[in-house]
């Protein structure tokens, strides 16, 4: 038996997931399209008053990003669960929690990163100040991985269910609240010219906490769902 190191398994898994995503382009583009659509609907619903849009732009972009991230969660484990490769993952001698981290990282690269790239364009649509766009991207960079990491726990709990959709949103959304609050708050504070380092540090600490704490419950939940 060839023994492969943890790092090699980690990167092999990452590469496999990325490759699979690039072969199924829809997985890549659907959350992005959803994100753009939701943001486009808002001016149509509230009226194109520039001041109003400017004021609520961070909220709109973040809520839309949050929903897009939530809708794409299913792809982390669903197809692996259906074709049985998830069981092989759990049989792997390396700690499941770290392998889970590889899958979540892949998921973020597929869904979170594109959101981050397209967000500046949408921010311009909504008339946000150009100086604030950089900050928006930073909050997305710190915040969206947290969404994927927390979402992984919930999707691991519901992956065995046929209809997990609404249940998943019920499980996940309350946990997304702190990220939403601090991310939008940072941008709003910056709008009125106040310092935002505190909010960014808090978002960063959420990210570190999520990276260190969520893989365990995710791994445990996967074991439960496959039992």
């Amino acid at each position: 038996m060839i023994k492969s190191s943890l790092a090699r398994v980690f990167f092999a898994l990452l590469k496999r997931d990325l490759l699979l995503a690039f072969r199924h382009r829809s997985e890549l583009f659907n959350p992005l399209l959803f994100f753009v659509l939701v943001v486009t609907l808002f001016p149509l619903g509230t009226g194109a008053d520039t001041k109003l849009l400017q004021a609520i732009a961070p909220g709109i972009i973040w809520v839309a990003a949050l929903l897009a991230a939530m809708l794409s969660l299913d792809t982390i484990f669903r197809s692996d669960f259906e074709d049985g490769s998830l069981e092989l993952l759990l049989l792997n001698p390396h700690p499941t929690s770290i392998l889970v981290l590889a899958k979540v990282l892949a998921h973020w690269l597929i869904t979170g990163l594109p959101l981050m790239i397209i967000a500046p364009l949408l921010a311009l649509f909504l008339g946000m100040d150009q100086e604030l766009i950089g900050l928006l991207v930073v909050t997305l960079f710190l915040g969206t991985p947290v969404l994927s990491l927390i979402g992984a726990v919930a999707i691991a709990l519901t992956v065995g269910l046929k209809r997990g959709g609404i249940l998943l949103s019920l499980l996940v959304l309350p946990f997304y609240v702190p990220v939403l609050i601090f991310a939008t708050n940072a941008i709003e504070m910056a709008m009125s010219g106040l310092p935002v380092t505190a909010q960014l540090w808090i978002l960063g600490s959420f990210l570190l906490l999520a990276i260190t704490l969520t893989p365990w419950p995710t791994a445990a939940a996967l074991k439960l769902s496959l039992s």
Partner: protein
Amino acid sequence: MMKFIHKTASPPYFYQLSGRWIPWLAGITVLLLLAGLYGGLIVAPTDYQQGESYRIIFIHVPAAWMSLFVYIAMAVAGAIGLIWRIKLAESVAVCSAPIGAGFTLLALITGSMWGKPMWGAWWVWDARLTSELLLLFLYFGVMSLYAAIADKRVASRAVALLALVGVVNIPVIHYSVEWWNTLHQGPTIAKFDKPSIDLRMLIPLLIMATAFKFYYVWALLLRVRVELLERERNTQWVKLLLKQLKG
């Protein structure tokens, strides 16, 4: 010690024992509730700022305390169930959720009843009301997860995991909501924190809080007994019990 715990926690023994406890718990709860209501509605003086409307706190505050207490109890029971595989603890965790949701709902409704005359609106995005609302969603998540998974042993372990993740997050959610609230300059009326509360108000409040604790144990045992019967339906002790009831 562990032997004692395992004996008490074994479903047949616990089923019998809890049956004997329930009348006592019911009695204590009702007595305490009556005492608390008498103290709160009749003895306690009128508040000089809020008038009589403050009397809602005698149910609102204990309900809000219990909404958190039950969630923590649920997470602790879930952890015990996960670590030591004690069936009873799993049932306790699962059965706590609807009771906790009830307390949370009660805290929300009474909070809004109190808010209408004080703030002039049924709902205000006040920090405490908002975190209570999120707590209600957490309870609903636990309950629907349990309902969605067909195998109840797996379901109760999934619930225990979710409750544990939730209990770590509750302080984070609470403090971020508080931060959000103070920065958006919502209603600045501090809710119930007066520098010194009249003893004639404090005592009924504490009696009501104790009554709610006993009530929780009472309602919990009632639910746990049903849960135990359902899970152990094919075991010998349930069959013996049914035969006893029949004959």
